[in-house]
């Protein structure tokens, strides 16, 4: 029962959403539109569950004195945004948007920009022409790094041409093969999920 009902739901909705692709009938369209809406609504509830879970774990950790200060700061951050939205709305000039623009966005982009330093460090430490494949990787990376800076164009117009050629043909061919492989794999997995052969989504409660 506990497994059969979800498998049946998955089968029914999977077949419905696959089948409607081939039908322009108004009933099929109506069913399709409704299910798309339900999908969004249930998805939003999964976020609410995630937030509740985060809050619960944070409170548990605080009571058990596991990094209480950091957990408290995170919890405070979680509460600040909804409170600001309730007080001042979410439009231009609101405290909610102000917090996003002056705290959230700068911190997020700064965390991401740390990667520039680690990429530079990795380039020095790890990028070695040990083998033929490694050498090919290194040479291609150098071609792109040189070819995409304006200074290189001042030296010679061949640099960007070589970069675009490498990008548009050999590199693209490999990426295309990966895409085709992913496409075939995704289709197979989707079929297995709909038919109930793949059941990993039923675990982890």
């Amino acid at each position, binding site marked *: 029962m506990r497994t059969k009902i979800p498998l049946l739901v998955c089968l029914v909705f999977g077949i419905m959403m696959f089948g409607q692709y081939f039908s322009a009938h108004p009933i099929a369209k109506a069913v*399709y*539109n409704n299910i798309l809406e339900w999908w969004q609504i249930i998805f939003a509830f999964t976020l609410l569950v995630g937030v509740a879970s985060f809050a619960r774990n944070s409170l548990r950790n605080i009571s058990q004195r596991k990094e209480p200060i950091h957990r408290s700061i995170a919890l405070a951050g979680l509460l600040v945004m909804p409170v600001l939205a309730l007080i001042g709305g979410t439009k231009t000039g609101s405290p909610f948007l102000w917090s996003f*623009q002056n705290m959230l*966005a700068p911190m997020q982009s700064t965390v991401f920009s740390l990667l520039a330093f680690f990429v*530079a460090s990795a380039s020095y430490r790890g990028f070695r022409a040990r083998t033929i494949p490694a050498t090919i990787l*290194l040479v291609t990376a150098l071609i792109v790094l040189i070819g995409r800076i*304006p200074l290189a164009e001042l030296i010679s117009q061949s640099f960007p041409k070589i970069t675009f050629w490498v990008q548009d043909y050999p590199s693209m061919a490999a990426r*295309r093969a990966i895409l085709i492989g992913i496409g075939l794999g995704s289709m197979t997995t989707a079929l297995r999920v709909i038919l109930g052969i793949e059941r990993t989504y039923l675990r982890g409660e």
Partner: protein
Amino acid sequence: MERLRTRWIIFLGLAAVVVISYTMNLPFKTSASPATEKAYKYIETLPESSVVIISFDHEASSLPEIQPIALAMLRHVFRKNLRVIGLSLFAEGTAIGYEMLNRTAGECNRNYGRDYVFLGFKPQYISAILGLGESIRRVFPEDYPGNKTDTLAIMRNIDTYDSVRMVISIADGDRTMQWIEYAGARYNQKVMAGLTAAMITSYDPYLSSGQLFAVVGGLRGAAEYELLYGRRAAGNRGMLAQSGAHAYVIALIIIGNIIFFRSRRRKREG
């Protein structure tokens, strides 16, 4: 300790190169890549009042790179008197997109509700993309400020992709792929992208097959677009620093390999 010292030297070196080259502020004349030129020319040739959807499908983390692209394209679109439907398939893109849209529309004296609208965010991006193909109003019954979509002048006679000339996805990940695979495949919607540089190679097959119409990629792409548009801004401003950073990384790779080969030769001889 030695490794830590080397790491700090590398970090300080990078910071110094970027800060000094950024401070120098030398203007650069870059040539536009074929993909950027294609994007520019298409928007340039669109008739006035054509409707484009601009989807802000990115996080705040990529803002420094994405924002110059988005601003350049938005300014171009508004200068051409195109009508813009803004939306976001990423929660963080909502606030960012709303602010950028209002800013650039204000620069060009465009009216909210008549010349542009920001519909906001909807989760489960595949569902949203497919839903827009059936009814934009059903997916977004209200816009981000809370107005009923039905009441907005721009939305008169527009309810599906049929009325939309182009979807421009400003993305830092695979959202553009979903636009191509769902809106493009099912509804034949033309899709263009403004992407972070890291994603460019991932989209090359779509560009080659024609499923993705054009790409403006990275800060370099923004600089190219600004050059075509005729207004030097953040993209162009960052090109010398970009060149410096690249030269620094190239030097690190070369030095690292020289040290590696020399120590390997020493081990063989020793």
